[in-house]
């Protein structure tokens, strides 16, 4: 027999009400915060997409020269990543980790 078997309908009702009250209270306070987090994540996403596809939009990629310097740092992570994705050999011609 679990605990809920002892619950009367009214105590279960009260528990639901208190739970709803706490959820509502949390929603009131976190409304603004959630919006800022969503905006921040959206900004990160937009920047990432822009960096990935700026050449396609006719904007020369400003970080091309700099990312060349990142090559030795990214090599190992990239290799681990494509193995995780089930790709045995490097899918990029210019990125020959294996």
């Amino acid at each position, binding site marked *: 027999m679990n605990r809920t078997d002892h619950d009367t309908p009214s105590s279960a009702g009260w528990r639901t009400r208190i739970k709803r009250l706490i959820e509502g209270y949390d929603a009131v306070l976190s*409304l*603004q915060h959630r919006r800022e987090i969503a905006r921040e994540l959206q900004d990160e996403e937009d920047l990432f997409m822009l960096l990935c596809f700026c050449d396609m939009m006719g904007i020369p990629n400003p970080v091309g020269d700099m990312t060349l310097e990142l090559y030795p740092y990214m090599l190992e992570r990239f290799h681990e990543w494509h193995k995780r994705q089930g790709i045995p050999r490097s899918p990029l011609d210019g990125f020959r980790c294996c």
Partner: protein
Amino acid sequence: MNAIWIALFGAVCFVMGYRFYSKFIAERIYRLDPYFQTPAHAYQDGVDYVPTNKWILWGHHFTSVAGAAPIVGPAIAIYWGWLPAILWVVLGTVFAAGVHDFGAVVLSNRHKGHSIGTLANKLIGQRAKLLFLFIILILVLMINAVFAWVIAKLFITFPASVLSVFIQIPLAVWIGYRVYRRSGSMLLPSVIALAVMYGAALLASEVPFLQIDLVSWFGGSDAAVAGGFDATSMAFLVWIVVLMVYVYIASTLPVWKLLQPRDYINSHQLVVGLALLYLGLLFGAPEMTAPSVNGEADISWYPLLFITIACGAISGFHGLVASGTTSKQLDKETDARMIGYGGALGEGMLAMIAIIAVGTLFASSADFTATYSSFSAAGSSGLGSFVKGAGQLAGNLGIPEHMGATLVAVIVVSFAATTLDTAVRLMRYIIAELGTEYGMPVIARKHVATSIAVISSAALVILPEGPNGFGSGGYLLCPCSAPAINCWPALP
């Protein structure tokens, strides 16, 4: 007179105002339409435009507009007696603040959720928008100065509160990162943060070693320190410098790192503070010992009373919140009544308990008159009196008075610090916008604009006359939002 009757009078007026006056405004003036497609539905993007339950949005609107301002003004304005202060808070809230805030939500809702500045430009003209920008600049400058002054004064008067306020900063950063990286709930961590803060405050009020009392460190209030400053003035100066350095850093950080999680903790504090004070009032049923009317005031109540109590009666600053965020989340247009008008009523309740806390603090009317001997004395001792009065009300719940006062000081300083952070950030944006508008891109840079904001605010607070006219700044915003609200129903 027993203070419970005063609170009851205010509450009945608020209920009647909501039941009848706001209904009249909603049905006859704004003609709210439950089938109007609100911007939250029309432009739903999951970030700014999100249809939100009216109770949740009311709570959000109320906690956004209520802060230290509806406490500071009434605590000073009781100088003319509690009766004029209470009457202005009650009548101002019912007939002015409620309509203003309600109108700002409705107006913005009917215009794609645009802010009141954009609407002033659209409905009145370009000059109204520029005027709006400059007035906000002046207002936020005064807010910075007033709240830096308030925090420094409270740190000096209640040194036990300092530790707790500074502990809030790393706790807020921790909550911000936790939510950002792991998308966890903020409720439990923020309740833990609040418990740590209050634990630190209560501990510091008992252990002098934990009190950061700069005046004592400088040798006591009568000691002379370098540069012709006495210990109190030097402590004030040091706190202002510390606050300005802090606010420079805080206002340049992304809002989710510090400002928002701290705001979340402060919202708990608002609930805790209101519950403490109203329950203390209910259980203690104290008598108002302050005079109902001060016949020996050295300065006329007209028009200063209406400038001293801005937030808590009417403030144009609410129009920024109502049109900036609230209107974009309205599920139904008819919800605007409860959210806008009801939010103003919530703030009126806060202003009312601030008056009651000061009005019941003193042993006799003579004691009150000795403390509130002049308007300038009221200005310097008003907030301290509120904190002590609130501690006394909390004492009716079994909390020792000095501990209660420390807790209330922590709450007020927390509100003021968040407002300071927000206002410096807002000032930075306005300076940058004006710089771009007038072809001076240098001052639009983040650190240049922030430096101008911080240095000008520090200069204003250190000036011998100190920051006056904060309330008038709040009113100056009304000429921008109120005509827009008033013009709109008359437009074809």
